[in-house]
């Protein structure tokens, strides 16, 4: 993040509200710190509002933060990260504007970092992950929402067996039938290798539904299970990845993880089908199938 606020200045500004602030991570316009609010650890999110962007882009950025907070407010379930006790607030440090708020602190590791360790999850863990993702998508669907950014970076593996995985980052969640935040119809929000093929349809805003999230969830589980992204090859350019998303059929998961039951592999293979109609539409029935495998 550009203009990352100095830890000391931030701590001074939050004096009396947050103690023992320490830096955790950053990406895009956001930085994350760990701090203690009334002696409980929370993740303090700091969103940078650049001064050199035009007013509409600024409104869009603020809108995304607001929407993420609203969405988290609606998705009160163990599958999602929960809002913390610090409500959103505008702050200014050295003439730079930020929005600051808190989420619960999650003691765990995201799937991306597990993948970088060449970690090989077993069936029971993969079932837990699949169930978490499906329950999260179901809850979003019930609120007419699509996450649009499900990927290993946004799934945290926790240490608690009661709550094994948590989904993060609802910043670009999409409200079906809602107003688009961006005016640019060519803009595709999300992370390219995890985007569903229908996102590249010029009429994607009219046609997109929760099955795009099912696709991203399938790609995420496939990659976590096999250590290999089913579509993207390392080092290739974005256009090649886009072409592959539209045209390349992933290798069946069972060929990379022959130790897993074929019924589980088939479920994941079905989720990464190009045509939404080929992905199972009933999350309830799919959850039942997945549970039967455990």
């Amino acid at each position: 993040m550009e203009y990352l606020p100095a830890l000391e200045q931030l701590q001074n500004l939050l004096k009396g509200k947050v103690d023992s602030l320490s830096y955790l991570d950053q990406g895009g316009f956001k930085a994350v710190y760990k701090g203690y609010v009334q002696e409980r650890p929370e993740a303090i999110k700091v969103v940078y509002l650049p001064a050199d962007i035009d007013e509409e882009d600024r409104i869009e950025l603020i809108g995304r933060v607001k929407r993420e907070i609203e969405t988290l407010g609606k998705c009160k379930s163990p599958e999602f990260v929960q809002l913390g006790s610090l409500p959103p607030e505008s702050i200014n440090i050295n003439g730079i504007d930020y929005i600051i708020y808190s989420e619960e602190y999650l003691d765990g590791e995201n799937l991306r970092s597990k993948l970088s360790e060449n970690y090989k999850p077993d069936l029971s863990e993969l079932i837990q992950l699949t169930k978490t993702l499906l329950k999260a998508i179901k809850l979003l669907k019930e609120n007419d929402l699509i996450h649009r950014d499900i990927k290993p970076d946004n799934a945290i593996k926790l240490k608690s067996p009661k709550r094994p995985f948590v989904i993060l980052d609802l910043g670009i969640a999409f409200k079906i039938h809602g107003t688009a935040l961006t005016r640019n119809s060519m803009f595709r929000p999300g992370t390219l290798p995890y985007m569903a093929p229908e996102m590249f349809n010029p009429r994607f805003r009219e046609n997109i539904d929760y099955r795009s999230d099912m696709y991203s969830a399938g790609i995420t589980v496939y990659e976590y299970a096999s250590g290999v992204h089913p579509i993207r090859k390392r080092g290739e350019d974005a256009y090649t990845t886009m072409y592959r998303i539209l045209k390349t059929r992933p290798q069946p998961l069972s060929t990379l993880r022959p130790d897993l039951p074929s019924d589980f592999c088939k479920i994941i293979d079905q989720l990464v089908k190009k045509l939404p109609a080929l992905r199972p539409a009933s999350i309830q029935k799919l959850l039942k199938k997945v549970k039967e495998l455990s």
Partner: protein
Amino acid sequence: MKLFAQHGYSPGDKIINGFKDNTIDGVIFSARYEKMEKILGDAKDINSVSADAEILLDPEFYTCFYAHQPDAKLGGLNEWPYFSTHRRGQLESSETVEKILADTFDTVVKLPLTSIIAPNIFIPRSFNSIEAVIAKNFIRKTQQLFKKTGDKRSVFATLAIDRDTLLDQTEFEEFLNDITALDNPPDGFYIIVGGGITDDQTEISRSEIIHADVIAGWMMLNYTLSINGFKVINGFSDILTPFLGCAGGYAGATGWWSNLRMFSMSRYISTVSGGRLPTIRYLSNALLNRITHGERRAFIKLIPEINNGLPRDSDYEVGEPDRKVEVLQSWEAISHLNIENIVSDMGESLQSLEKMVNRAEITYTNLAGYGLPFNREANREYMEALMESIQAFRRNAEI
């Protein structure tokens, strides 16, 4: 894959005999030819020979745009209390659609049917049309209105389409995306695909349905709907029944007249054609086609496999059989093809279909080798369309 009798004009005792032969599992009564008051007795007769027979009624509401035409041939449809004439504009109103669904359900739930088929209109050209929007509205509201009756049976939404609708892949896929993610979906779909007859021939093998993209599209409908938990009953599917079964279909249907083997909206319009009855034919599984009694006699001397080797063959041994036997032999042949080709693994089923088509192609080649070039060009096109349809289906279904 189950096989149902597609009911129509002059059923006689054909359906009862089909159940006795154990080659059909159900019947789809035609509202045009079955009187409401007759269904109770007919259902009893069927149940006396097959206790678990599936009994359905096609309300044939898709003819509603034709009813006001002077040359319309609607049989007894107008006698059904739910049936009424409509203009397209009227059906754009959701209230009208709801009323039609409610009226139809009120009538048919009183009948001894095992499942209920909901009314719908026919989509004539494209899924990007007003008719498709209206049809989707019927599908969307089917379960909601059916539930109001309190009836516990399964309800099937009708999807009646022209073969042309399956040729625009983009529109077709968007339609599939829509109907597979309904909030309150029906339990299944009753699908009929209309295609005209290209010439005087009345066989499905010569019809416009025999086009690789049309068959692949019909298979794709069965596949996408079945993986999403819907039961799919295919009306007028005749020899294509095993193809649809391999793709996940629950049942197919065929009947005794050519217009019960393949669907066309033209069956509801009077024509000036002569009244000569079509020649009685034998459905050869080796040829995937129907041949006349004379052709059969000549062919089997050279290629005995043209005989199916099934019990109904005996009806053809002594001479041209009685007309009412023809459909019994067809049901026997198709149900046998279903058993031979449809297994739980779709990949294996598709391979089996390919073998079946290859075998037919070889049989045609052998016939030509004996100097019997039986409709050589037409059959080559027929075989090509069947084989390409399997390949196109694999591609589209990402198998």
